[in-house]
């Protein structure tokens, strides 16, 4: 089982929320440098998968394992997972009234650096880095002084998630429906941010209902999740096929499971 090429391996994962089983045996491996897309209809469990990997409380892992960089992370606190390079871009980013964006991001980056034995970032260096990422995501210059996500539109909140991705520079990016509610300009900016993040050492898992974002960020693998199970996996052309034929098509062919 030890495949040193893999960044994360999800093994027969069963997860329930409030006694209801949502994930019913997920197997998924993501190698370094790969982009995977999980597609599926509403309620299929795709957001659950992203949140379980990030360690969100409220999900019970019944059986199976999540192995990240060679170790199980099931018992690892969410902040420790974050410091180890797992990043979740939220479907619904949270507003933090009174918590300034600057302070929030400085605390985050320093927490990650401390864990990795690095010194806290000098204020001047941090300001430079933040300004660079702000420009990349075409955010309002006032952003740093404002409370985190407070008073932002849906699109601004999503861009702010990718700004954080760019700034914190994790190893595994989990994008939970980042494309939902974005107009075409915002989608272009967000995708650009993710494409810049991509590298041979970094991996991306895109959770999405629609194929649209995959026009901008080309996945290496596409998995279709229906009712808590991956029912089909394939290359980027699978997304196209889904777009054309709809989820009913996969639901009809459940049974012909294909794993990469």
């Amino acid at each position, binding site marked *: 089982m030890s495949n040193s090429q893999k960044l994360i391996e999800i093994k027969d994962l069963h997860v329930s929320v409030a006694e209801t089983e949502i994930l019913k045996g997920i197997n998924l491996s993501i190698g370094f440098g790969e982009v995977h897309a999980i597609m599926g209809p509403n309620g299929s469990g795709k957001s659950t998968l992203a949140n379980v990997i990030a360690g*969100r409380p409220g999900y019970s892992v019944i059986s199976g394992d999540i192995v990240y960089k060679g170790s199980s992370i099931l018992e690892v606190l*969410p902040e420790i997972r974050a410091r180890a390079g797992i990043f979740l871009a939220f479907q619904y980013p*949270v507003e933090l*009234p009174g918590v*300034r964006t600057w302070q*929030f991001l400085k*605390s985050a*980056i320093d*927490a990650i650096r401390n*864990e990795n034995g690095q010194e806290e970032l000098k204020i001047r260096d941090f300001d430079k880095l933040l300004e660079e990422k702000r420009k990349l995501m075409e955010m309002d210059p006032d952003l740093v002084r404002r409370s985190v996500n407070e008073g932002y539109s849906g699109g601004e909140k999503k861009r702010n998630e990718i700004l954080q991705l760019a700034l914190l520079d994790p190893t595994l990016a989990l994008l939970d429906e980042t494309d939902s509610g974005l107009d075409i300009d915002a989608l272009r900016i967000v995708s650009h941010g993710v494409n810049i993040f991509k590298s041979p050492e970094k991996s991306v898992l895109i959770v999405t209902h629609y194929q649209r974002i995959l026009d901008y960020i080309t996945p290496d693998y596409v998995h279709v999740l229906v009712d808590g199970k991956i029912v089909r996996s394939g290359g980027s052309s699978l997304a196209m096929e889904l777009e054309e034929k709809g989820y009913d098509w996969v639901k009809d062919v459940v049974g012909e499971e294909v794993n990469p």
Partner: protein
Amino acid sequence: MQKASSLLNKYEEDFDNLSSINPGWSSDLRNKAMDTFREIGFPVRRKGNEKWKYTNARPIADVEYSSGKFEKMDSNDIKLIAPWHESWINLLFVNGHYQETFSGSLSTNIQISNMASNDLAENLTSNVGGIMDYSDDGFAALNTAFMSDGPIITVPEGENSGIVINLIFFNQGLSDTVNYPRVLITTGGNSIVSVIENYVGGSGDQTFTNSVSEIYVGEDATVNHYRLMNETDDTYDVGYGRVRIDTNGAFNSRSFFRGCGIGRYDLNVSIEGENASCDLQGLYFTNGAQHMDNFINIDHVRPNCQSNLFYKGILAGRSRAVFGGTVLVRKEAQKTNSVQSDKNLILSPHAEVDSKPALFIYADDVKCAHGATAGNIDADTVFYMRSRGIDLEAASRLIIYGFAGEIIDKVEIPELRSYLGESFLSSLPSHRFEF
């Protein structure tokens, strides 16, 4: 009843002793107030008493205090526990008695006199007691009967040097002592002044600070008034702020209260001129078994005026906070614009806040809104922060400081703002949300 009469005897005795040394100009006022106190006593009956519904004054009333004690302090010790700055005029009062003024610059047209003085001009003393109506309030009557010292701050017309007057009322913490700070601020037309009142110190068993501040805001004048309370668990602190605002005047109040044994600030603002405004903001935090009561009343007498009331509370331990009072919009006060809000962050399941701001509107063309909230931090908020690598403790701190920062960040005196952000906030209980 036996106990009550022996306690009253003690006040009688102290009153007689003080009358022989207190300045003659205040004797009528003090005698009348003592009569009222004899008649009504402390507000210990709470049934049907809306003003004291959620605060029990009995523990304060039941102590036999002695007054008048005062030992000289080293002002360097004070500088460690209260905000001060060399560009401010800093006045130190110990147990209600004036000790000294320390500051780098004293060049100002503002006149500061001492109530303890016997030879004050009548124009200085005539306003003392002019706003504080003690007729139905035993604590205010007691302060008026026993006032013996305190600043009379007179701001001349047009004065706008931006000077900050910093009043430090230090409670030495001698057990079973009471002190009665008294402040009067009058401002001439078109003037601006900033005054900070600090109530600090305490410890010892059951010390009691009973203060009254009267503030006249003149035509086109602005008073920026800051009130800090930083006392101890054994301290009782009952304070009154009485404010009258003339035409085009503005009164801006910022209160920062740590809880104490029993703390209460009764602020009453009467808007008596047109186009005047008051902006009252405050932050209180309580911990342990502390109790803090903000009782705030705004009276809109004249038309075209604005009032804003914005308070926040942070409650931990088994502490309790009260937020009460009313905004009254009288029939004549058309075009009033008034907003009230009190938000509370509850950190402990054993803490409790009774937040009951109320509006009485008798005019028909007004814009008024009010609201009160109390809540804890939701799990999504904390997970969002943790998912960025921030641990529970740091997340809690960011959230609490962020909550408090909404009030602190608006303080316009930079040195005071940094004091509040650092020293004052750091006394917040360290807290970790459990999820």
